[in-house]
């Protein structure tokens, strides 16, 4: 049943101070104050710094912050081929990795959901890749991928299959990074999708069974639409993380061979922490943030709407 808290006229809470201490509103703000303080200081200060730097000449090994250059850096970055190439790599990676993770994760979830035995142990094992640092396990994937010393090629070789040069072939290297990411994050998708599947109400599916709905129709009309919110959340989380991919690339390929695996963040790292061009790096970061923000205004809207709807339904 609908309940509490006033949203009169403007939709704003109308609580005023009550006799018993602070008002609900003040209380609500007091609760977010500590977190907001940290976020404001440690998100806005660096962001402000980055914006400021992006309008200046700033080479750390050439006198640090120097003269104001207006939009020069923005122009430079916009015409920087490597920047656009790195964005293309990032997008390619994200689409492939997130796509595969979602498809495989959901498939695994269905696989497990239908299983009657051993779910607990399988779930435990699936969590393992999540608990490891890409900076550490990525190293071992480099070992696994080694054309001569690696287990993968040894296995392929014993089966008489071609033995690719996983990280050295320009046509394969990016997919090898994708494979690593898929290894690490598919379980995440699978576990969440599995939890989602298990928490779906049973009755509509029984009704559909009685109605004689085909499996495909049940999936299309019921399962996926009902899972959609949680899958969407995972999709957003994975997309944001994939777009910011750094560790795996740093450990596995360092952007190589050539630049075929040089993602946006790795290029940012190279510009900022190898060439120490803080001006370019900041400019790129701002582009990146801006693009993500614009994208997320659309992407996050359903999530936020879901949130506010629930907030209003409860309050």
């Amino acid at each position: 049943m609908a309940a509490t808290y006033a949203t009169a006229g403007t939709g704003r809470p109308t609580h005023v101070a009550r006799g018993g201490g602070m008002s609900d509103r003040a209380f609500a703000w007091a609760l977010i104050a500590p977190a907001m303080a940290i976020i404001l200081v440690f998100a806005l200060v660096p962001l402000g710094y980055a914006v400021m730097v992006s309008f200046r000449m700033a080479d750390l090994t050439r006198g640090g912050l120097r003269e104001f250059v207006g939009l020069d850096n923005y122009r430079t970055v916009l015409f920087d081929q490597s920047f656009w190439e790195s964005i293309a790599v990032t997008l390619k990676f994200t689409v492939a990795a997130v796509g595969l993770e979602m498809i495989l994760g959901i498939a695994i979830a269905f696989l497990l959901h239908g299983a009657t035995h051993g779910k607990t142990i399988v779930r435990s094992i699936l969590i393992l890749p999540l608990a490891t640092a890409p900076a550490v396990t990525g190293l071992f994937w480099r070992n696994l991928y080694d054309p001569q010393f690696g287990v993968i090629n040894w296995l392929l070789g014993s089966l008489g299959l071609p033995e690719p040069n996983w990280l050295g072939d320009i046509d394969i290297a990016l997919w090898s990074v994708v494979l690593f990411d898929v290894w690490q994050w598919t379980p995440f998708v699978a576990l969440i999708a599995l939890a989602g599947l298990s928490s779906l109400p049973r009755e509509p599916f029984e009704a559909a069974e009685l109605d004689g709905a085909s499996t495909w129709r049940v999936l299309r009309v019921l399962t996926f639409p009902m899972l959609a919110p949680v899958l969407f959340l995972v999709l957003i989380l994975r997309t944001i993380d994939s777009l910011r991919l750094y560790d795996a690339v740093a450990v596995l390929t360092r952007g190589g061979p050539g630049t075929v695996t040089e993602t946006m963040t790795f290029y940012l790292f190279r510009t900022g922490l190898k060439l120490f061009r803080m001006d370019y790096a900041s400019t790129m970061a701002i582009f990146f943030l801006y693009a993500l923000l614009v994208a997320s205004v659309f992407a996050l809207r359903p999530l936020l709407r879901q949130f506010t709807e629930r907030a209003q339904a409860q309050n």
Partner: protein
Amino acid sequence: MLQRPVHPAFSTLRYALILLVVLFAAFPIFWMILTSFKPPGDIMVSPPRLFFTPTLDNYVHAIVDKDFLRYVTNTLIVSVISTLFVVVLGSLAAYSFARYNTGDGHILFFILSTKMFPAIAVVLPYFLIFRDIGRTGIGQFLQIGLDKPGALIISYTMFNLPFAIWLLVSFFQDIPRELEDSARLDGLSRLKVLRKVVLPLAAPGIAVTAIFTLIFCWNEFLFAYILTRKTWSTVTVGVESFFTLQGILWGPVAAAATLAVLPMLLFVLAMQRWMVRGLTFGAVRG
């Protein structure tokens, strides 16, 4: 979801596929642990060797020569304290968003958006901020500064808060409002209601959030790498000290990596009951 009886052939196929998935997920970690027990002569050889005389030398090297347990301890301290901060601050804020719709979603959106800023872009400003804080008396007292735990704790808290708040909001929204109302009628103040009713009820959600935060802190590399030197380096940075002029010391690296991953593995396995309960983030509802 409805479960129907299936043909035995399908069932066999299902378990075969599950086995495949399990192998795929577990093998790299298994291989890492295996490598950690290999003598140097058995590691970088082709074809790879499955059978060898196990040795603990790699662990001795990692622990004694490289003092790797120090990194494990550092990581533990930093991660646990950060997680604590994240959970406490995140819970308070998330509760406010969930219950009072504070800021009408705008602030929540702002908080989420901070997650999108690439860490690499802010790490240098962080370096400068912490350098300056570290030079002040407060910074020294609170151990906030370069190569000090406070700097990492603050950074990790900052970088995990958005995700944590995001998760927690949905958990708090799942708690029926009436529970709080009832407790208030029973005479508890808002703060006490939060402590005695809301937080215990959100425990599974908080646990999941804590698990994820701990994992992210534990596995973080970039900040640890830039903000620490040696005294307070974490495991991910510590592993780098095995990349030597003689090449990567695969055996000791494997031993160190195992040491670095093991606490998390054990922790996650112990907490997996909670993970499963909280994993849907309250996003599925009938």
